[in-house]
């Protein structure tokens, strides 16, 4: 049997015959139960479309005001990046950097990489950095925390509701849409398929010359 007919569970190191689940089906490791593959319908096309939408939505959610508060006649509005600046001005540089990375930079890099990779695969174009992009995207995925930030917004609003009047701006709606898009993006991106297609593209290029 050739080596490509085998698979190894990444969490318990069991050698298996590669399962080839149909679209919509799931393959689990028989020993530890890990989800090994879950092919999605039209994964490349959907990833491409979702990452374009996410990339566009990123800018209104970053720049437009999300929440406005009125306390005793004073008004202030919160923007996604302003929390980072406020922490920086308070002398909490380390926390400011962590918030910047987890809520702004890593999600943006992730969406951009998904856009680059799925774009190349969609148009059947090879690029010698495709594997590097793929590795970066997989490793950064855990560190973008938009959904946790959303929960942070909710808790902050609940804390403020007793002493302030709240109103919500377009930035917040854009942020919620961005959150939905990135969630769909991660669930539609089929890593196994992407790696296979990258390898095909590389081999095809070598055969062509």
């Amino acid at each position, binding site marked *: 049997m050739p*080596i*490509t007919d*085998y*698979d*190894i569970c*990444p*969490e*318990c*190191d*069991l*050698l298996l015959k590669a399962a080839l689940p149909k679209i919509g089906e799931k393959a689990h490791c028989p*020993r*530890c*139960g*890990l989800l090994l593959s879950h092919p999605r319908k039209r994964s490349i096309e959907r990833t491409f479309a979702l990452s374009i939408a996410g990339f566009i939505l990123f800018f209104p959610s970053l720049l437009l005001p999300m*929440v406005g*508060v009125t*306390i*005793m006649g*004073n008004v*202030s509005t*919160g*923007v996604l990046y302003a*929390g*980072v*600046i*406020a*922490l920086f001005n*308070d002398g*909490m540089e*380390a*926390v*400011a950097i*962590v*918030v910047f990375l*987890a*809520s702004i930079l890593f999600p943006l890099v992730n969406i951009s990489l998904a856009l680059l990779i799925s774009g190349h695969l969609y148009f059947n174009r090879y690029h010698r950095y495709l*594997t590097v992009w*793929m*590795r970066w995207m*997989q490793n950064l995925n*855990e560190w973008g*925390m938009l959904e*946790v*930030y959303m*929960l*942070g*917004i909710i*808790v*902050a609003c*609940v*804390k*403020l509701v*007793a*002493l*302030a009047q709240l109103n919500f701006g377009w930035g917040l709606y854009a942020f919620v849409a961005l959150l939905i898009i990135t969630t769909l993006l991660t669930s539609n991106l089929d*890593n196994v398929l992407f*790696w296979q297609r*990258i*390898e095909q593209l590389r081999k095809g290029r070598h055969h062509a010359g």
Partner: protein
Amino acid sequence: MQAKEQGFIRCHDCGALSETHHKLSHCPRCDSLLHARHPHSLQRATALLISSFLLYIPANIFPVMIVNQFGTGEPNTIAGGIVELFDSDMIPIGLLVLVASILVPSSKLIGMSVLILCAHFRWQINACRWTKIYRAIAFVGRWSMLDIFMISILVDLVNFSGIQIIAGSAATAFAAVVILTMLAAENFDPRLLWDNQQNL
């Protein structure tokens, strides 16, 4: 029987299989370094975990945020913030913050310690159950950043002459605890739990 003993290595990044006897140092498909197990998994995870244990103490003792109202500052610790939510009848949100900021970090610290001990002393355990516990620990870790994000939003929104919220020193320690425990979970290799089992 482990794939490693049967002569196969799986690439950590792209999942391609290689045969050990070819003695490849890099993955033929994606060119990342090949390791049968994460390098220095237990040493790194232990070092990261000990650092997070140490930082966990200041994270809970010192105030995470300070509410300045008309010249008087009221420091808030993590636990204090939760008590305040309960006092103002915000029970569901209070429970949420309790889970994210206290239960998750502390059970992560304990769970990771037990996992490292199991792997280090080659205890005969139910590897399947502990792999699932590991998976849960790795999954919930990020949610502890909730408090940090909430503080960054409050610091920005509440900044008036009469009332101000500023971040306290425990915020730095707490953010460090969350990141260090996430890194510890990432460096811990659950396959070590299975390597030690004699009757597989």
